[in-house]
C-alpha cells in the first residue's frame, strides 16, 4: 500500500512544527536539543519525500537540495534566533538561497531582482534600524517568543495546506529532455539573439510581459509606490525654516524642555 504524498507531507510538517515550537526562544532553554533534532529530522524527511516522490534526478538536482536546505534552515533561524541582528542576517541568507533556487529555474531576472531589492535595499534598512534601536543588549521581547504555539500552528498549518495540494497540481514532471520544471520556462522567449554562447535568458521576456499583458498592474504598483513616497514625505516631520530665527527653548527646573508661550 502506498501512502499519498500529501499525507507524508502533513506528517513532515507536523514534526517540523513541533521542532520549531521547541526551538523558539523562551525563558528556559531546556528543550533546544530535542527541537533541533526534530527540525533536522523534518528537514531531512522533507527532502527525501521531495526527492523520491516529486523531483527525480536532473542535472541541477544536487544544487536544488543544497540551496533548499540552506534556505529552510536559515528561515528557521530567522524566527528562533534570540538576537534581532542575527535574525535579519539569516533573512538575507534566505533571500540569497531562494535567489539561487530561482536561478536553477532559469528565472535569473527574478533572482537578481530579489537580491537587489530585498538583500541590497530593504534588509540593509532593517539592519540599520535594528542596530540603532538596540544598543543596550537584548530586550525581553526578543529573547522570548510572544505567542509560540499560535504562531507555529498558523504557519505550519498554512504551509501544510499549500504543500498538500502539490500532489494534485498538473505540474510538468521533469524529464531528461527538459529538466527544468515550473512556469517560467513555459514563457517562450521571443526575439532573443541566437548564438552559441547565448543562454535563453528571460529579462527580455519578463520585460515584454510586464509592459504589455500586465501593464495595468505595473502602473498600479507605480501609483502605490508614489503614494507611499508622498506619505513618507508628509510623515517625516516638520521643516525647519533656515532663514528664520529658531524658537528659543527653555529648560525647566526638572530638566524638561518647555516650549515658550
Amino acid at each position, binding site marked *: 500500500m502506498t501512502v499519498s504524498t500529501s499525507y507524508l507531507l502533513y506528517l513532515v510538517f507536523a514534526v517540523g512544527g513541533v521542532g520549531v515550537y521547541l526551538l523558539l526562544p523562551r525563558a528556559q532553554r531546556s528543550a533546544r536539543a530535542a527541537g533541533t533534532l526534530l527540525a533536522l529530522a523534518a528537514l531531512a524527511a522533507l527532502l527525501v519525500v521531495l526527492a523520491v516522490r516529486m523531483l527525480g534526478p536532473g542535472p541541477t538536482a544536487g544544487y536544488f537540495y543544497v540551496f533548499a536546505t540552506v534556505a529552510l534552515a536559515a528561515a528557521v533561524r530567522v524566527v528562533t534566533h534570540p538576537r534581532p541582528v542575527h535574525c535579519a542576517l539569516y533573512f538575507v541568507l534566505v533571500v540569497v538561497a531562494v535567489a539561487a533556487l530561482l536561478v536553477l529555474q532559469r528565472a535569473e531576472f527574478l533572482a537578481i531582482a530579489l537580491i537587489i531589492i530585498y538583500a541590497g535595499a530593504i534588509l540593509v534598512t532593517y539592519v540599520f534600524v535594528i*542596530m540603532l534601536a538596540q544598543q543596550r543588549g537584548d530586550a525581553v521581547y526578543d529573547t522570548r517568543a510572544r505567542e509560540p504555539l499560535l504562531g507555529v500552528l498558523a504557519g505550519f498549518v498554512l504551509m501544510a495546506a499549500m504543500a498538500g495540494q502539490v500532489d494534485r497540481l498538473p505540474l510538468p514532471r521533469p524529464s531528461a529532455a527538459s529538466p527544468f520544471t515550473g512556469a517560467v520556462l513555459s514563457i517562450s522567449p521571443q526575439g532573443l539573439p541566437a548564438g552559441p*554562447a547565448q*543562454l535563453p*535568458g528571460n529579462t527580455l521576456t519578463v520585460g515584454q510581459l510586464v509592459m504589455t499583458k500586465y501593464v495595468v498592474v505595473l502602473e498600479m504598483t507605480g501609483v502605490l509606490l508614489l503614494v507611499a513616497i508622498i506619505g513618507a514625505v508628509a510623515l517625516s516631520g516638520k521643516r*525647519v525654516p533656515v532663514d528664520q530665527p*529658531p524658537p528659543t527653548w527653555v529648560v525647566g527646573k526638572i530638566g524638561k524642555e518647555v516650549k515658550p508661550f
Partner: protein
Amino acid sequence: MPVVAAIFQTQLFVSVALAVVALALILGATAYCIYFERKVAAWIQDRMGPSRVGPWGLFQPIADGLKFVWKEDSFPAHVDKLLFVLAPTISFVVPLVLFAAIPWGGQLDVGGGNLVEVQVANPDIGLLYILGVAALSVYGVVLGGWASRNKYSFFGGMRACAQMLSYEIPLGLCILVVVLTMGTLRLEQITAAQTGYWLGFIPQWNVFLHPLAFVLLFICMLAECNRAPFDLPEAEQELVGGFHTEYGALKFGMFFLGEYAHMITSGALISVLFLGGWHLPWLAWTQPDAVSWGAALCKIVVLCAKVCFFIFVMMWIRWTLPRFRFDQLLRVAWQGLIPITLALVAWTTGLLYFGVQRSPLWTLWGNVLILAAALAWVARARTPVTGRQDNLPPVGAGTGGAG
C-alpha cells in the same frame, strides 16, 4: 589527443582558467595598488614614499602582507565573534565575485573555429548581477562596525550604511542610462556596441554620448568604494579608525584588500560602460573581429590600462580633495545627484521613444540642458548648498524642532 584538445576548447575551461588566473592576478594587483597609492601620495606630497624594501620599495607589499599574516589574530573580549569574522570576509569576497561578469578580452578563437568569450560568465542579467552583488558589500562595513561593539566603529558602520544606500540610487540610475541607450544588460554586447566610429574618427564610446552620466557614475563609485572625499566611514580624525578600529592582522588586511579590489572592479565596470571596455580606436587587435590569442591578450592589456587610469584618478582625488561633512555628503546625493540622474533617465527614455537614443547630438543636448538647469536651480535657491546650519535648534533642545 583530440579529447584533451576538445576540453581546452570549451567555454567552461576558458571560464575556469580565467577565474583562476584573474583571481591570482587581482590579489597581487590589490597588494600593488597599496604600494601605488603610497607612491602617488608621496609624489603629490613631494616625498619619497616606500623605498627601503627591494628596488624602489617594490617588495613593500609583500613585506606588508607577511606582516598581516604573521601578526596575532586577536579578538577583543566584547565582540560578536561570528559577525566579527564574517564582516571582513564579505568585504573581501564581494568585489572578487564581481569580476566574473567583466568582459576582459572579447571573443577568442580557441581553434577549429570555436569562439569563446574571454569572460568568466556572460549571464543574461550581466549588469544587474554586478549591481546586485555589489549591493551586498554594504553588509561587510556595517557588520564590522556593529560586531566590534565600539562606539567609533558603530558610527563608522552607520555612516557607511547611510552613505552606500544613498549613493546606490544615482549609481543605478546612471547605469540605467547606459542600459536604455544600449538596449542590453550583457556587458560583452555593451562593449561590442561601442566599437564603431562617428564621422569616421570619434570612437562610439558612451562617454561621448553621456558625459554627465559618466562623471556622476564615477562620483557614485568613489562613494561606494568609501574613497576620499567620501571616506566618512573611516575618517581617522573623527572616528579613530572608523568601522575597522577593532580589527587587526589578517582581518584588517582583508578589509584593506577588499577596498582596493572594489576600486579595481569599479574601474573595470566604468571602463566597460563608458570607455568601450577593451576597445581602442585604430588598433586592429582591439576590434571585435580580432579573435586570435594575441588579440585577446592585447584587449586584456587595454582594459587593464583603462582600469589603472581610473585607479590613478581615484588616488589623485584622495590626496587632493578634503573630506565632505556628513550632511553635505547626503545632501549631494539626495538633492544633487538623484534629481540630475533622474532627469537624464527621463531624457534618455524620451530619446528611446523616438529611436534617437544613440545619436550624440540629442544626448549631448540633453546633457547640456540638464546641467544648465541644475546650475540655474542652485543659483536661484535661497538656501546655501553648503555651509553650517547655524539656525537649527541647539543640541539637547528636545525633539520638537530638528528636522
